[in-house]
Every structure is written in C-alpha cells, then in structure tokens.
C-alpha cells in the first residue's frame, strides 16, 4: 500500500471531518486533536463536503468523558473510527484505554456508577442519547474480550447463540451461518468434526477465535477488541492478527493493546492515550499508525512508542 498517498488522504479526511464538526459546533476542545489542527494549517484543503463524504467515520466519540461515580476516568476524547480500518488505542496502564473501548458499545453501563458525558456517534446517531436501545447497539457493535470467554456450551451453540437471539431460524440456515463464521475466524478446519463438543475443551487461542466467530456471526458493523491477545501465546497471537486483517475487509475494528509492535503491525490509525495529573485518561495524539510510530508530534508519544517511557 502506498504510504504517502494513504497518509495524505487521512490528513485531508481528518481535516474534512474537523471542519464539518466545527461547522456544527460539536468539537469544542481542539486540544484533544492537535493533529487535526496542524493538518488544517499545513495541508491543502479539499472541500469539506468532499472529504467528509469520502471517509465519514463509522463511529466517532465527541468530547467523550467517562465517569465512575465522581471519578473521571476518561476526559474529552474525540476519536474517529473509520469503516474497514483498524483503529488501535495504545497507552500505559491505567490511562483509560479499556474504559474508552468499553464505552463504544456501552459495556460500561454494567458497572455501577459509571456514566458518560459527551457523545458517541454511530453512523451519525448518538448511542448515549435517551431512547436508544442498548441491546440494539451491542448487536451492531460487537466485542471480543481480553480473556477468551466462550459459554460452557458446544462449539456450535456458542456461534449460534447470538444468531438465535433474533428468533427461530431454519436449521440449514443456522448451520450455514455457523460454518461461515467459523471459516472467517480461521477455526473451521480445526473444529469441523467436533462442533457438538464443549467449547471449554479448546485451547486458549482457539477459544479466542471462537469468540471472534461468535461476534461476527451476528453481522455487527463494528468489532471492539479489548487486548484480545494478552492471554495468548505468540502463535495464537499471530493467527488473531492475520484474522483481523481479513475481518477489516468488512468491519470497522477497534483494538486496545499493550503491545506496541502489535499496534504497529495491524492498525491503520492509532490513538495514544495518557493519564493526566488528575488521573483522568486523555488522548494526546491521534494519527495514521505510520506517523505515530515514526514521527509522532508529541514527545510523550515518541518516548512511549520507542520504549523510553517512564
């Protein structure tokens, strides 16, 4: 992929998005997006409408803050998630990466006292607006967790679980969906002869791919992955990473990772987060992954990605 042209496109698109948002007046804190500001100054402007139409982000957080009770865990994050791209969120422990990604399908709602300020737009609709069906949001924005969490059911039933939520469907059709999902998650050949066996008997890496199959079986629009490889060995990690490259043909993917090599390998854009003095996490930089890892604008990002941090 020609890097130069791709990065230029991003710059313009970000610029475009920024301008559009400024036009609407929904991006009050420019400090959270230094890149956007710089791009606005340094790149030849396309027309805002053109750029926005080219890459309207699939999801976009707008000045998003997440609170646990009175404690602010994430502060003013404005992060675009583009369709058919992989967006990585990196940063040191405790900077709010997991909190941020879990807010994208409202999994934080499960934690008592958690609430959000700002907006999370999914196709231009705020998922935190009143009257939004959380269950529907979670069907559109699937999630893969840090530790593989297959249900104690058969492999088949694990993949079919989400599909069955939509009501009864013919057995043949369900078989089809299960097979397709397992094929797409590169697990079919390993499990096709033991679909009725318990998923708990699979290895950790297989379990995680099963969880991915389970997530894509319901045809979500976005897949969130919260450190999906942290409990896996390098071979299983490689498989998951290859799988992500396959999946990004169809989905927007957001991945939280502690592994900077992984972020550099798999992602298209990267958000760098950092804990502020008041312990709230903020996004200090967002850019094309190539740029974050070669010529980041923020000194802290540079220190972090080069391993000189702390």
């Amino acid at each position, binding site marked *: 992929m020609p890097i130069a042209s791709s990065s230029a496109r991003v710059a313009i698109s970000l610029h475009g998005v920024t301008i559009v948002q400024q036009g609407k007046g929904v991006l009050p804190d420019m400090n959270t997006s230094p890149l956007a500001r710089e791009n606005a100054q340094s790149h030849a402007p396309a027309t805002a409408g053109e750029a926005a139409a080219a890459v309207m982000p699939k999801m976009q957080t707008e000045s998003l803050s997440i609170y646990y009770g009175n404690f602010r865990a994430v502060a003013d994050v404005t992060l675009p998630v583009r369709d058919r791209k992989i967006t990585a969120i990196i940063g040191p422990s405790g900077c709010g990466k997991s909190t941020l990604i879990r807010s994208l399908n409202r999994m934080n709602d*499960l934690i008592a006292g958690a609430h959000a300020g700002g907006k999370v737009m999914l196709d231009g609709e705020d998922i935190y607006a009143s009257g939004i069906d959380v269950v*529907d949001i*979670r069907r559109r924005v*699937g999630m893969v967790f840090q530790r593989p969490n297959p249900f104690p059911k058969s492999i088949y039933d694990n993949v079919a679980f*989400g599909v069955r*939520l939509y009501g009864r469907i013919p057995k043949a059709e369900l078989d089809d969906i299960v097979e397709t999902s397992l094929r797409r998650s590169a697990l079919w050949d390993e499990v096709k002869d033991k679909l009725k066996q318990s998923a708990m008997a699979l290895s950790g890496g297989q379990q995680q791919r099963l969880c991915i199959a389970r997530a894509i079986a319901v045809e979500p629009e976005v897949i969130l992955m919260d450190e999906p490889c942290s409990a896996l060995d390098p071979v299983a990690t490689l498989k998951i990473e290859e799988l992500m490259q396959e999946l990004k043909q169809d989905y927007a993917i957001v991945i939280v990772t502690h592994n900077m090599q992984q972020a550099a390998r798999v992602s298209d854009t990267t958000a760098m987060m950092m804990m502020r003095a008041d312990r709230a996490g903020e996004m200090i930089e967002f850019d094309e992954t190539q740029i974050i890892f070669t010529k980041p604008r923020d000194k802290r990002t540079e220190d972090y990605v080069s391993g000189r941090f702390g």
Partner: protein
Amino acid sequence: MARGTMTDPPNPAARTTEADVADTQAIRARARQRRVQASMARERVRRVTNAVMLGLTGLATLLALIPLVWIIVDVVLLGAPSITPDFLTQSFKPASLGGGGVLHAIVGSLILVGLASVMSIPIGILAAFYVVRNPNTTLGLAVRFGTDVLAGLPSIVVGLFVYTLLVVGRSYSALAGAVALAILMLPIVLRTTEEMLKLVPDSLREGALGLGAPEWKTAFSVLLPAALTGVLTGLMLAVARVSGETAPLLFTALGSNVLSSALNRPIASLPLTLFVYATQPDPIRHAQAWAIALIIMVIVLALNIGARLIARHRAM
C-alpha cells in the same frame, strides 16, 4: 561461631591453658547431654499425646457412626420383610384385612413434595438472580437476612404459621401441607442457587450482553446453565430435606387413609403415616411403620447420592 572456636588453634594472646580447654569441653558435653535427654523426654510425651489423641478421635468417630449404622441395620432388618409388591401397590386397609399397603402415602408424599417444589424452586431461583445482581440494595440485604433466619426456623413453627394462614376457618388440605414444605425448601433453594451463580465468572455475562443478549436471556441461557449442576445438587438436597418432614404436616396436610389427589382435602404422606402407625397398638402397623421408615430412608439416601454424583460430574 561456637564450632569455630573448637577447631581453631588456641589463641596465644589469650593464654588459654589445656585445663581451660578441657573445662570448656566438659561444660559443653554436659549441656549437650541435657539437651538430648530433654528432647528424648519431650519426644516420649509427644508420642504418648499423639497416641491418646488419635485414640480419642477414632473413638469419637466410632461413637458417631454407631447410631447411623444401628439405625440403618435396624430399619432394614425390621422394615424389609414387610416390603412386598402388595405393600407398595395397595392403599390402606383395616388391620383385620391384613393392613393393606402405603400407596396412598407414597402418592401423597409425591404430590406434597412435587407441589412444594413447583412453588419454591422458581421463586428461589428468580430471587437468587436478584440477590446476586443487587447484593447491597435494601431488598437484597433483606432477602439474604430473611432466608438465613428462615433456614434456621424450626419446621413446626412454619407448620403453625401455615395452619393459622390456610387451615383455620377452612380445612386441612394438601395445599396447606405443600405450602409449609415450600417455605422450608425456599431458603435452601435460594442460598444454593445464589452461591452457584456467584461462581459463574462475570466474563460470561459480559460475553452474552456484548452479543446483544437481553439481561433475562443472558440469565436463563448462559448463567443458569453454567451453574446448573450446582443448582441441581442444591435442589436435590432441598427435596431430600422436606421428604422426611413430619412436624409441619401434622396440622396442615393432616394425613389420610384414602388414596387421594385432591388438593383441598387432607392427604397422606409417608412420614405422617409412619408417625400414626408407630403410635397404634398393633404389631401389623408397627411392622408397616418400619417398612415406611425404610422407604423414606432409601429415598433420602438416593437423593443424597444423586446430589453427590451430580456434584462429582461437575468437578470432572
């Protein structure tokens, strides 16, 4: 350090004489001897103490086993001869006609325990879900405290309560007996289900909700199946517990001599029939009472063994 000075050559600066060295060695030897003697004495004491305590605990274990074995042997010896096909398939007959069988009591017990299960199990499981999800709310705390108290309540008190509630002004009935048993089952069902649900990892709940499953669907198709073996074990123990209950039935189900399945009439049960027969001055009834005791014992034992098998199956 002490060993060092023994092997080191005498320090000339200290002008140690041979006699001094001999003296020191003698003192050390005596000290060592005393230490060895003391430790031997201690070891003897320890061995004796060990033997005595082992003997006492073994004796206590035997004493504890004696009533159990005695009861089992007695019940089997005295009860088995009366258990015939007729005894299990016929209802009550007067002693002059041979005494008949206990089919009416078996059916009555099945109805009472079955009805009590139908009433208590759904309530217990649903309440357990509530308590697990809301442990620190006022209602959650109240339910947990309430079930603890209820679990410790003497069963006759429960019987008395149901008597005043459902029997006074109406009549003795199978329904009243079943309600009394259900109240006794409820805390067991609730607490075991609660404990088992707590063991289900939270990640399963997140996984299901993350797929867009509604909360109720998550509870019934993921969390409950994951805890099922433990829950089943608890249910069997609860059923076993109330299968032998007599006191709360005395003034609710009352007992009956006819084969009946009417819920608004008095109904027989195995423990009640045992109680009535054992207090009658008739050798036939006494033999039948022993046979009933054997039946109850086998049922409770089977339920307990079943619960253990399920629990073991889960462990594997």
